[in-house]
Structure formats: C-alpha cells, structure tokens
C-alpha cells in the first residue's frame, strides 16, 4: 500500500521535503484519505497542534493556515484542501481572523502581534507592541516561542486581511475597506513576505471564492495586493525555500505525543486552541535562523516551490473538467496522477538525472495524455492541451522555468514531436516528416542505387537476363527490368519523372507481370468481388485464414449454408438408418443419431423429415451452422413446415443473422392459419431498420389474440431476444413455459436469454431444469459452461465444457471455449491435453461431482 501511496503522492525521495510540502498537496489528500500512515504525517501529528489541516499546503508553517484550516474544518468534518471546502461562516471567519494574530511578529520590529483585543490599537497605531501571549499560545513557554513562531501578517496589515476575508462573506462588498498601506510600511515588507502574502492569499481566495471561480478570486487577491502596495509583477514566481537537515532533526525532536486520530484532532482543533508546548523550540530556532529579522529572499535555495498560482491552476484544471467519458478508471488515474506527477516534475531539482526526468516525463506525458484524452476524448487535443500548458508555463517569469526540461518536453508534445510508442514516449524529430526529401537526396547522390536494385531484381528472376525466357511473362518482366535500369539514371524521385522515362515506365508496367493483377482488378469480376467479400467481409471470418485447426476441417470452399457430411459413417447403406436415427435421438445419443440420419439423407436426399430431424439434432448438439444447412434442405422440400421455420428462426438468431431470423419467423406466422390474415394485413415495415419492431408488434397482436399458443410465445421470445429486449424475451418464455413446462429446449432458451442479459445465476437454474429433462442435452451443458465463465468460475466452467465435449467431440468452438476457460483459470498444464484433444485426461482432471 505504501508503494501506491508513493506512486500517487510522491515518496520522500521525490521531493527534497519530506513529502508534505506545499508542492505535494495531493500528498496531504492521500494521507488524509488513506489514513495518514506516511512518515511525514506522523511527524506532523507528533508536532502538537497540527491537525489534519497541517497536511495541506501549510504543513511547514503552522500558522495562519492551521487556524484557517481548522476554522474551515470546524463544524463540518474533514475538509480537504484544494477540494473546495464550503464557505466559512462568520464565526469561523472571526476565529480565523483571531488566529491570524496569534503568534506573529513583524519582520522589522521582531515583536509578535497583539492579541485580538488590541486590534483597534494596532490599527490606529503603529508602535510595536511587546510580546503578549495570546490564547493560541500557552503562556509559560510562550514568550520565546511567540517571538520566534512564524507568523501571521504584520499587524498593520491586519485590517487588509480582515477586509479581504470579510468581503468573502459579504458577497459584493468592496474588496478593501482599508486604504492603501502607507509606503513606508509597504517597504518594510520583504520580498519573501510579499511572495508569501501573495501565495497564501491566492490559496485563501481560491478557497473562499470557490464558487465564484478562480478569476474572481484572483481579482480579490489583486485588490489586496494593490492595497498593500505589492506589485505582483515584480515578485518572483517562486520563493526559494530553505530546507536543511535541521528541519528533520527538529521534526524528530518534536514532543512525542501519540498521534491522535484525525477526528479527535478535529475536535480538539475545533476550539482553535493549538497547544504548543516546548517541543517546537528547536524547530523555531531553525526557522528564526532562516528567516531572521532582516530576512531577505530566504537562504540558499535547494528546494524550489512551484509558482503557487501555477500549482493552483494545474490542480484546478486537473480537478475541474467533468469527465463525460464512461472510462472512469482512467479519469481517476489521470486526476490522481497528473497533479503529483506534474508538481513533482517541477519541484524536483533541475539538476536531476536526465534519465530520471525522462521517466517522469514519460509518466507525465502518459498521464497528461490520458487525462486530456479522457476530458476531451480525442487524440488531437493532447497537443492542443500540451500547447496550452506550455504557454502557461512559459509565461512564468522565472527563466529557470522557461528553460526547464519539463517545459521543453511539454512544448515538444504540443508540436507533435513526441508520440506514444510501446508504452513509452518516443521522440520523433520534425525532420522525420521530410524523409522523402532525405531519401530523394540520397537518390540524387547515388543514382546507381536504383539500377543496382533493378539489377538485383533481374538477377532474382531465373534466366531473365539471358535471351531465352522460359515464359512470355518472365520475358516481359525481364524486358521491363532492362528498361528500368536503362532509364534509371534519370530517375529522381523528388522531382518526378521526366516525360520520356515516365512513358517508358508506364509501358513497362503495363506489359510486365504486374499488369495481370491490375487487369483482374479492373475487370471488376463480380464473382471475384463476392469471393473477396466473403473472405474479408464481416460475418465470414471462419472462411478466411482463421488458422489450421478450425476451418481446415471444413474442407475447401465450404460455403455457408451447405451441409457438410461426416466422412466415416458406419450407417451408410443401412436401410433402417432413419428409424435408428430417431431411436438414437430419443435416447439422447446425438452424435450417433446425426450419423444415422446423414446416412439416410445421403441415400434419400428428398427425405424432408430426415433433414428436419437432422437439423434438430445438430441444434441440440450446439452446431447451428449445420442445423441451418439441414433445415434449409427440409425447407426447400416443404416451405410451410412450421417446425422447420421456427427452428430456422432460432438458429439464425444464435448466429446473429437478424434479417434471416426475422424472415423465417414471419413466414412461420404466415404459415399458421389463425394468423395468416393478420400477417397479410400487417404488410411490410416502413423501412429496413424498423423491420424487427414491426414484426414484433405483429406477433404481439397475434399473441393477444391467442394467448394460449405456446409456440407463438416462443417465437415472440426469440424476436425479443434478437432485438436484445431481454426482459420482454424472458417474460415471453415464461408464458410459454407455463403452457409447456416439460419442453427442455424451452428451458434452455430461457436460460440463454437470462445469461445473455447478464443474469447468469438464474440462467444456471434454468439450464439445470433442461438437463433434468434431457440429461444429454449437449447445448445446455455448453451453455452452463458459458454461464460459469461469466460468473468467473473458470475451473467449473472448464469441467462443464469437458462434459459437453464428451457428448460431442466435434464441437470445435467448445474446444476453443475450454481453452479460454483454462487460460483464465490458470490451469495451463491442461492446455496440452486440449491441443491433443485428450478427453480422458481432461475428464480426469476436471471432474463434475
């Protein structure tokens, strides 16, 4: 779990800080969500007075943000920084404002501010006040701490901040009630102070004005800064923040109060009484060192904070766009990963390993891409968004930022020079696009190359160079090669061919071997196209190059719809084949029954009854293709046989051939005397897309006319299943089953409809009923296997497939399903047995209890 945390929130290794710095707001979020087992969080908790709010951007500095967080966290519950906490109410605001003036002091005078009760005095007077302990600090140990404890704003600035916050609560109120700060005081603000003020007020404003948007918030901030005479333009984008080993020591040295639970802390903190016993003293000493009385822009910079607004913008950008795409996983991933990745990339030192950056950049790019893709849903927008991001970043005033590798990377992304390849980002040089020019250049340089190639080509064709070609075609090819080599020196790809060479080439091409193919194509041979369509078009993949095992068994050119006879048929010549076939079928020995019936129809191809029975056998043996073929033969003999028509409708539905299924079911209806009038009256559907609904309505009107005809309901159920209206289909099958409860095939239909609707558990019950009625119902066994797979029980599923194969070993698709189930279950050792179709081994390994 910690690796996940590290991944999302950044581990200690990622930033020089201990992962809880302002650059890692998400670390705080994660810590809060995951229960805060991170080292930093524990250290933070150990530091008394640090609530969960301390995990936010204010972690290093337990000052105004702590009370602010606490105030905002007050009544409600856990507030997570950056996610738009609800507006503060007045009480919270007041306590917040009180909190500001807790432990603070002016940089100039080195004294802490007065307690809240002395605000007015401060407001009107500017004399420095002696240190006075405030409710926020326990008196005994306070004085040294109060001095050293950073810090709220200097007291003179208090009213400005007050107004700033108050205006948040009174929407529409003027931004600043206090006049502009007198210049002398403004000058006393160090650059660091100004930056801090700007940053923190930005964050505050974003929180306060969460519902009015960032622009409004920024406006408020600008007002505040103006009133304080701070010119944001002259402030550095980043504040060089010091981080030394001393910090770590101080953290560790902090008083060892057991880390209280988050809720308890909230409760304690709700009273805004941050207890600060003597523990943090060394910590504050360090702070004092760093930010001495005449603090300049901080000490040596080893940790760089990202520009606050930039971070806020990025974070908001990652949060704000709502994800319309159904791929919620990706959005979560992108949202959670994009921010820390981006933040960390900027926060890590620029002197970092190039490789490390590449990896980070790769992750960022992927995340960004994912993020952008999800939010925009189109590939092209990655570049647009990267371009936007690059623009934002490049506007950062710090030159270091502009030259950063990250920025370069992003700008390259936006220009499309980087693409995603093999799960990595690969740089594609812009010149790659002009490979043609290069190639052409090469060609110019080595005009001999094409002739070499031509010579090679000539050499490969046997006996072509010589004067005695074995066939006209090759001779023509040789001629062409000669011509090509001759004309080649003039050939310059980039400039196009000059007229004579072009003509030569054309002629050569036409006469050469290639012409035959072109001619064939141009002839537009209908048969040829059909053949191609059959091979490459949809729905006929099995005839194309599916691989040896599956279609080779069919024999060459087995057109769909043609019945394929088995080779070794022991019943051939048996005069009693049909009767035997019927017996075998009744006994449930389906494969044998099929053989017997095949023998019969081979001898008597006009025997429609035998064909029909053969079709039924194949359907029960889960072979719809053969079933259709057989049924069609029966159909030609008797086009109005209702059983045949219904069976054809079912098999075509299984094969997902909607049009044929509807056609046959409609014919079925028309063939029934009670409904023929209805069918004639209904006519044709207004257009093909509505054909199915039209026929369904027709059937429903028939069903209302004759509610006790079970077959009608079966047909209606099949139609609904075709239209994927599974609820209606289930209802129809239920009605049919009420009328005919011992029809095993009906139970199977019900089960299959339930399974295709995702109700695999109920489907199993229905299949079981079917098997109770007909134990050797191979189709039901297969369907049970499919349902177990849907439920994730792959081993059980495999066992059912094995059972089904025991009944019909020729069912190639079931071998495939078995293989799939074994692949999912992890029982790879049995795959060899599947390859060799070793049923005995499989049955032993996968028993059905």
């Amino acid at each position, binding site marked *: 779990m910690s690796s996940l945390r590290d991944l999302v929130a950044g581990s200690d290794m990622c930033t020089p800080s201990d992962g809880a710095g302002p650059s890692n707001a998400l670390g705080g979020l994660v810590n809060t969500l995951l229960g805060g087992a991170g080292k930093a969080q524990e250290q933070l908790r150990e530091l008394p007075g640090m609530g969960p709010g301390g995990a936010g951007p204010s972690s290093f500095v337990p000052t105004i943000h702590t009370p602010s967080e606490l105030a905002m966290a007050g009544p409600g519950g856990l507030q997570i920084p950056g996610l738009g906490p609800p507006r503060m109410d007045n009480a919270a605001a007041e306590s917040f404002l009180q909190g500001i003036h807790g432990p603070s002091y002016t940089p100039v005078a080195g004294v802490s501010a007065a307690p809240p009760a002395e605000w007015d005095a401060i407001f009107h007077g500017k004399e420095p006040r002696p240190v006075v302990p405030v409710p926020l600090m326990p008196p005994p140990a306070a004085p040294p701490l109060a001095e050293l404890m950073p810090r709220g704003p200097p007291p003179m600035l208090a009213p400005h901040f007050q107004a700033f916050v108050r205006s948040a609560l009174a929407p529409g109120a003027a931004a600043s009630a206090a006049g502009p700060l007198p210049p002398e005081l403004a000058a006393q603000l160090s650059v660091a102070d100004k930056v801090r003020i700007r940053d923190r007020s930005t964050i505050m404003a974003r929180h306060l004005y969460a519902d009015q948007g960032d622009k409004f918030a920024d406006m408020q901030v600008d007002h505040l800064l103006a009133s304080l005479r701070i010119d944001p333009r002259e402030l550095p984008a980043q504040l060089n923040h010091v981080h030394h080993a001393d910090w770590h020591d101080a953290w560790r040295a902090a008083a060892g109060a057991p880390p209280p639970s988050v809720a308890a802390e909230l409760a304690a903190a709700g009273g805004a009484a941050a207890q600060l016993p003597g523990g943090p003293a060394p910590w504050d000493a360090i702070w004092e060192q760093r930010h001495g009385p005449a603090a300049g822009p901080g000490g040596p910079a080893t940790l760089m904070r990202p520009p606050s607004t930039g971070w806020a913008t990025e974070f908001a950008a990652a949060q704000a766009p709502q994800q319309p*795409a159904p*791929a919620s*996983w990706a959005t979560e*991933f992108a949202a959670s990963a994009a921010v820390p990745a981006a933040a960390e990339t900027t926060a890590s030192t620029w002197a970092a390993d190039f490789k490390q950056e590449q990896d980070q950049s790769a992750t960022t790019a*992927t995340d960004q891409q*994912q993020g952008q*893709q999800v939010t925009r*849903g189109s*590939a092209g927008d990655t570049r647009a968004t990267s371009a936007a991001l690059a623009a934002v970043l490049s506007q950062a005033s710090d030159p270091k930022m502009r030259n950063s590798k990250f920025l370069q990377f992003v700008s390259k992304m936006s220009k499309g020079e980087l693409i*995603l390849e093999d*799960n990595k980002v690969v740089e594609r040089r812009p010149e790659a696009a002009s490979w043609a020019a290069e190639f052409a250049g090469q060609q110019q340089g080595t005009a001999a190359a094409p002739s070499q190639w031509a010579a090679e080509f000539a050499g490969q064709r046997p006996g072509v160079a010589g004067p005695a070609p074995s066939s006209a075609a090759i001779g023509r090819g040789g001629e062409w090669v000669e011509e090509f080599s001759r004309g080649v020196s003039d050939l310059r790809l980039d400039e196009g061919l000059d007229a004579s060479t072009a003509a030569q080439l054309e002629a050569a091409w036409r006469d050469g071997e290639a012409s035959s193919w072109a001619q064939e194509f141009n002839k537009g041979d209908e048969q040829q196209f059909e053949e191609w369509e059959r091979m*490459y078009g*949809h*729905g006929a*993949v*099995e005839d*194309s*190059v*599916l*691989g*040896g*095992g*599956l279609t*080779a*068994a*069919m*024999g060459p050119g087995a057109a769909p719809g*043609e*019945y*394929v*006879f*088995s*080779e070794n048929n022991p019943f051939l010549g048996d005069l009693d084949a049909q009767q035997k076939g019927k017996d075998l079928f009744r006994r449930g020995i389906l494969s044998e029954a099929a053989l017997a019936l095949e023998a019969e129809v*081979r001898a008597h191809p006009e025997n429609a009854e035998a064909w029909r029975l053969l079709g039924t056998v194949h359907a029960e043996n*889960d072979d*719809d293709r053969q079933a259709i073929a057989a049924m069609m033969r029966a159909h030609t003999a008797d086009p109005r046989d209702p059983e045949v028509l219904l069976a054809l409708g079912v098999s075509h539905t299984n094969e*997902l051939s*909607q049009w044929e299924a509807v056609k046959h079911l409609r014919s079925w209806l028309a063939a029934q005397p009670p409904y023929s009038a209805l069918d004639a009256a209904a006519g044709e559907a207004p257009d093909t897309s509505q054909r199915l609904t039209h026929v369904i309505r027709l059937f429903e009107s028939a069903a209302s006319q004759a509610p006790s005809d079970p077959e009608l309901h079966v047909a209606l159920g099949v139609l609904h*299943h075709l239209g994927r209206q599974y609820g209606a289909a289930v209802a129809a099958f239920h009605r049919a089953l009420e009328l005919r409860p011992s029809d095993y095939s009906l139970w199977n*239909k019900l*089960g*299959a409809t339930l399974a*295709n609707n995702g109700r695999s558990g109920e*489907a199993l019950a229905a299949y079981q009923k079917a098997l109770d009625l007909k134990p050797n119902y191979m*189709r039901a066994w*297969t*369907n049970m296997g*499919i349902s177990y*797979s*849907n439920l*994730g029980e792959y081993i059980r599923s495999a066992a059912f497939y094995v059972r089904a194969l025991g009944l019909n070993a020729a069912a*190639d698709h079931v071998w*495939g*399903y078995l*293989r*799939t189930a074994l*692949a*999912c279950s992890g029982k790879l050792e049995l795959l060899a047995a*599947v390859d060799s*179709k070793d049923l005995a081994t499989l049955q032993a390994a996968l028993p059905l209890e």
Partner: protein
Amino acid sequence: MAQLVRTPTAAAAAKAAAPLLQQLAKSLESEGPALAKRIKGVVVFKIDGEEWTLDLSEGTDGKLYKGAPESGDKPDLTLTMSDQNFAQLVMGKLNPQQAFLMQKLKINGSMAMAMKLQPILDAAQPKSKL
C-alpha cells in the same frame, strides 16, 4: 448435388483467442455499425504474434480479418498481448487498465481509442445459444 465431406484434422495448436475472434466477427453483423460509430478507427490486435485487424472506420459496418490492415495505413490503435491475456481480457478476468498497468497489454497509438476498448471485448464474449 455435390456433397462435401468433412475431413477430421488435428487441431493445430488452436488458440484460446480463436473462438473469441470468431464470435467478434459474428457480432459485427449486428453490432458492427454501432461499434464503428463509436470507435471510428482501425484497431489491430497482435496476439502472440498473429495480427488481426478490426476495421471499424467511421461509416463502415465493421470488418475483422487476419493480417495487417488492407489499406496499408497505420492502424489507429495497436494492442499487443499474449493469447492467454487476450482470453482473460475478453472474459472479464482482467480489465484493460489492469492489464496495461501490469504491462500485460501494450498499447501503441491512440489512447482515446484504447479507453473505448470494452465494447469490443464484450462483443467477443461467447454468447449463450437459444
């Protein structure tokens, strides 16, 4: 009438993916246009080295065939995975994002299209037969 005789042959290392791809091809008859409207591109599956092209270009009805894309263009999305992982993906044992994170699935090309993979995988699942 010519009668065709089935010659039983030993299944040559039948892959787990084969019936799933067959099912996908069949599903294209009914679901092809809808899928093409969503995906609008060409997806190539490289399963244990075998290349299968699923052409769901905008406005077409969808096609699935073995080998590289016919038009010779670069596919919009190429997915490379083993046979076993393809089976697990289709059957729902593995979901695409898990597979991607665990490096069981390699994606080349449009990430946006990869997000929309699920309906294609669903269409390849074995269907229960009425």
